[in-house]
């Protein structure tokens, strides 16, 4: 029975000197790469007789929509006839080997100029990939570091998922740069050899260090495990956000809700009115979610009719987002980002001054309170009280006024504060 062994490669395929000497050393201890030995970033070996092989990398044909890529059959036949066995494909490269003691087998590449020209193509491809990563990073960077990036993450996929995405982009950037630099260094050496330029002692030292794949093996292996965990965590965080949104337990019917809410609803705006819910499918419910530094995050979409004793009635709606974070600074930052976002809305109509009555009630309750009222897409009230934030939109303005909304909300916040 064949014994198999799986290893995390201690180098990346474009670190050509290191990769070649790693495979040679593995064969020397009786671990020979299996056919197509790289799968999901892991290397598969089978145990056999200890043999010394020299491994060489050649450029593989890239896969396209109409072609699986790899190595052309004619090339394989020519190489096999010369004594070079194709072991498999690793990244951009086809890996060949031949017995180290067979002196009659020529090197796989004997013309540095042509060899360098082939590597230039791979370097160009690597550079193309890097440019795409940079474009993605710039677009992502605008989202990550834009003026309302934090708010966008809180309201969207969640902070964890956004943070992990940023780490992944940075990691991809690092790998892209390393890929291009490694290939560039290799090409430069080949071109120098092709021109017959002497190799400097420092270059010889560089190659010797690269061949010593042991020196960076642990870094590479830890990086592999870290990137594997990172991708897993990113997928999980996205999936968790999806599950949280889809979980019916996180959506409560508003008319049937008996728990007290830390904010006012339409029926709380006027004492002498009666309220009846409308029957719109997507409204009149409480949605709740959590994030790692937002322990309470509620969203209410209410729609209904307010009837006054004089017989008049008004239909309208109210959406309230209540966010309680772990720090006052974080909440203040979210308020700033809400304001920034709305100020840049084309419907933004400017701030309204708060009435003296509201200013009095704010100073009466004391504490660290900010209140803003303005019209953006809808009439809006934004309140921060310590770590708590309320973002309120209401429509059907005829039934209400900013002052009534602010008064009711401050009162509800004061009640839950106590």
């Amino acid at each position: 029975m064949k014994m198999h062994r799986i290893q995390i490669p201690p180098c990346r395929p474009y670190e050509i000197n290191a990769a070649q000497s790693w495979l040679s050393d593995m064969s020397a201890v009786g671990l020979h790469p299996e056919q197509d030995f790289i799968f999901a970033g892991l290397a598969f070996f089978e145990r056999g007789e200890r043999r010394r092989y020299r491994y060489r990398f050649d450029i593989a044909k890239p896969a396209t929509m109409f072609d699986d890529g790899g190595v052309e059959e004619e090339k394989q036949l020519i190489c096999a006839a010369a004594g070079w066995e194709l072991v498999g494909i690793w990244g951009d490269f086809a890996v060949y080997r031949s017995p180290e003691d067979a002196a009659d087998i020529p090197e796989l590449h004997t013309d540095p100029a042509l060899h360098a020209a082939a590597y230039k193509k791979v370097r160009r491809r690597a550079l193309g990939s890097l440019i795409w990563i940079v474009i993605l990073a710039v677009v992502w960077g605008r989202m990550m570091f834009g003026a309302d990036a934090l708010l966008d993450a809180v309201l969207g996929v969640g902070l964890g998922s956004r943070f992990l995405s940023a780490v992944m982009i940075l990691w991809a950037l690092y790998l892209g740069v390393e890929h291009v630099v490694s290939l560039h260094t290799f090409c430069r050496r080949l071109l120098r050899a092709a021109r017959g330029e002497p190799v400097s002692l420092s270059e010889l030292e560089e190659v010797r260090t690269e061949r010593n794949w042991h020196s960076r093996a642990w870094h590479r292996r830890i990086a592999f495990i870290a990137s594997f965990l990172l991708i897993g965590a990113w997928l999980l965080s996205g999936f968790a956000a999806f599950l949280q949104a889809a979980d019916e337990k996180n959506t409560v019917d508003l008319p049937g809700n008996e728990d007290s809410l830390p904010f006012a609803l339409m029926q709380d705006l006027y004492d002498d009115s009666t309220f009846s819910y409308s029957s719109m499918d997507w409204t009149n419910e409480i949605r709740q979610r959590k994030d790692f530094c937002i322990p309470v995050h509620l969203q209410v979409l209410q729609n209904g009719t307010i009837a006054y004793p004089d017989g008049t009635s008004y239909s309208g709606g109210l959406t309230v987002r209540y966010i309680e974070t772990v720090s006052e600074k974080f909440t203040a930052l979210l308020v700033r980002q809400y304001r920034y976002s709305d100020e840049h809305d084309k419907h933004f109509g400017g701030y309204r001054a708060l009435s003296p009555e509201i200013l009095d009630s704010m100073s009466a309750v004391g504490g660290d309170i900010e209140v803003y009222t303005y019209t953006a897409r809808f009439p809006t009230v934004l309140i921060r009280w310590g770590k708590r934030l309320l973002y309120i939109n209401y429509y059907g303005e005829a039934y209400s006024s900013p002052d009534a909304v602010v008064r009711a909300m401050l009162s509800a916040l004061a009640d839950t504060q106590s």
Partner: protein
Amino acid sequence: MPKKSLGTLTESMFYVLLSMHRMPAMYGTEIASRIAVIGGGTVEIGPATLYTVLGKFRDAGYIEEVDDPSAVGRMRLYRLTDAGAAACEREYDRLRRCIADAEAVFSSDVRYADEDAQNPDPALQTV
């Protein structure tokens, strides 16, 4: 007519053309063997290099693929074209001129004025 110029040929390229010169159509493996014979064991061409050269020559129109009903798998049969033969002869002429220049330098005492300027020792200067 060559589809794209290859500029100065490298040694490997020249030997591939040379090995195919005045020969019937050959497989890649036969080209490699013939280079070993022509080079008297001092010139060898790696299989990956050979395949790269064949690809470049095919694109440049220096060689052409010949139908081979007996071919096994995707081993192709190649023949030198007139453009390839001309390129081989051009390179041969260039190398001959190089050799002639080298012979002229090695076989004469001619020194150049700027060399004298750098050599203040009169004993070393050209008479």
